[in-house]
């Protein structure tokens, strides 16, 4: 069984005002098949955790480690991490002008699997996944994320999640900016991917809304760069009622 372990992770970024420490000792273990929700107020470092796992060059790891089945992820390049089985569904997916969704998906699938997918089954898989995510066929020939609405970009992320079949996926505020219909469609896609591949999920969100459709096994409250409290799904219900004030009151400003 696969396991993703984050151990005492400290991360900083360079800003105009100098080095800013964001993550201050994160410990988290996710087993295959588990759904972990990370919840927290704005600026608590949730997205930093997501991007650090994926290897974005902006974030400097000062100490700690991330292990995928015992192998150190932090020394891998961004693409090596993806090929090792990690996936990040981004909050703001970028546009890639001139690269069609079809071309992009096939190139990524080929890179992840180490060989080109068999054409007939691949085309069928892409079509079926798109249909289930209620994406019009025309998306296949459009340039990646170019002119997509916020909801369309999120569906495109989940399309990739379904097709690339990672072992662990981090969903960075996938629910933000979605209306309830789009939220249901996207959540169904995530649940389907989990059913089909048994992947482990790290669900990063500000709101509890998405947890109505994707049921977490564990909930972690993220405050000021570390996990302040953890528990089961009932913790999310409590946050829904009380908000983050209880945690913020304990946090020194700055």
């Amino acid at each position, binding site marked *: 069984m696969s396991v993703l372990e984050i151990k005492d992770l400290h991360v900083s970024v360079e800003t105009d005002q100098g080095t800013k420490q964001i993550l201050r000792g994160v410990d988290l273990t996710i087993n295959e098949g588990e759904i972990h929700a990370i919840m927290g107020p704005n600026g608590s470092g949730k997205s930093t955790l997501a991007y650090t796992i*994926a*290897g974005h060059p902006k974030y400097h790891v000062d100490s700690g480690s991330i292990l995928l089945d015992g192998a150190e992820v932090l020394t891998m390049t*961004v*693409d090596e991490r993806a*090929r090792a089985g990690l996936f990040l569904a981004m909050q703001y997916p*970028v546009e*890639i002008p001139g*690269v069609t969704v079809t071309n992009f998906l096939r190139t990524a699938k080929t*890179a992840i699997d180490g060989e080109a997918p068999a054409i007939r089954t691949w085309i069928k898989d892409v079509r079926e996944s798109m249909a289930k995510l209620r994406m019009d066929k025309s998306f296949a020939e459009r340039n990646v994320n170019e002119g997509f609405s916020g909801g369309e970009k999120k569906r495109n992320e989940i399309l990739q999640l379904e097709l*690339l079949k990672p072992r662990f996926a981090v969903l960075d505020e996938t629910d933000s900016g979605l209306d309830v219909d789009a939220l249901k469609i996207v959540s169904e896609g995530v649940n389907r991917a989990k059913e089909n591949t048994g992947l482990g999920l790290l669900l990063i969100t500000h709101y509890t809304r998405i947890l109505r459709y994707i049921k977490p096994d564990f909930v972690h409250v993220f405050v000021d760069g570390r996990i302040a409290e953890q528990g089961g799904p009932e913790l999310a219900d409590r946050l829904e009622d009380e908000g983050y004030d209880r945690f913020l009151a304990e946090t020194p400003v700055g």
Partner: protein
Amino acid sequence: MSAASTSTAPTSSPTSSEALPTAEQHGIKEHSDGRFGFVPVQTRSARFKSFDVADFPAVTGREAVWKLSPVAKFTDLTGGVLDGSAYDIDATPHADVDVSWVDRTDARIGTAGAPEERAAANAWSSFETALAITVGGEEAKEITLTRANLGSAPRAAHTIIEARPFSQAVVILQNTGDARLSENIEIIVGESANLTVVTVQEWNADAVQLANHFATIGRDARLKHVVVSLGGGIVRVNPSVHLAGQGSDTELFGLYFADAGQHLEQQVYVNHDAPNSRSRVTYKGALQGAGARTVWIGDVLIGRSAPGTDSYEQNRNLVLTEGTRADSIPNLEIETGDILGAGHASATGRFDDEQLFYLQSRGIGEIEARRLVVRGFLSEIVQHIGSKPLEERLQGAIEDELRGTEGN
């Protein structure tokens, strides 16, 4: 002669330089093209023009139209004797498209524009016969004209492309082999015609081409103009479009890929001279290798005669290696306030790191990701050409150019 080169502020019909606001008053700043605070007093349409080479003084390289070009490398074209005879041309036949050589006395010659510099005037004075491509018929069609045997002696050429009223066609000019060429191409788009002209430069490595395209567009007519410059030592293609008829429309696209030592230049001029005219200018280039040089100048003039104008021009350059230089100079001159829109944009930069991160986070290796981004960057232009076979062939040609990037 001093031409517009720096300001994006509307020139409010200055009668003398004293009439202009001072820099302090309006915050006018010079761009980085070395004009040192010079504010243009001459409207773009007022540049000196002549069909006769003798009317132009010898080229020094300090002229606005030449200052970014390696003029010492083609003195034969700006000042020497040019062979103006007919040359080999290979054209795909079509019942509604006539391709023939015509005399200098042909009534169409000189109706679309006139030379503004000496190489163009030299070609105009020197050509003995003009190639005329006359498009009729309302159905969509595509023809390709190939020049492959121009040779390495200095030569002049003159071409007329006329789209008769209501006609429709894609005309592809394919250029390969050797060349030392100065030429003028007149494009006459009749009322409600829909013409696409694509000129593809895939010359041999030491070829020199100085081309001026003059287009005039009639009422409710449309011209799509595409410049693709990949091969050649010095390639300068300057399209100038006169939106002369009400509701006329033009889209000007350019794609260039400069390798080590290559000079690829384009000076684009759109003259809005009729109500409700529309223009879009989009040029994109990539540069790789020591001494790769590109120049883009985009002039847009919105005249008093052009209320309701809708205009936008942009140039984007992607720098792939050290040691390259891209000049990008957009100029926008507006003489009427009654317009729908006018804008310009210019950006020259390295890879977008966020695009690279996105692709790599999907397992795609760095080299492949870079190739995808560059291919995508240039494909935006290719996708607009409107000829599937040519689009596919050019994608392949871009792949070939990109293969030269690896190892850098």
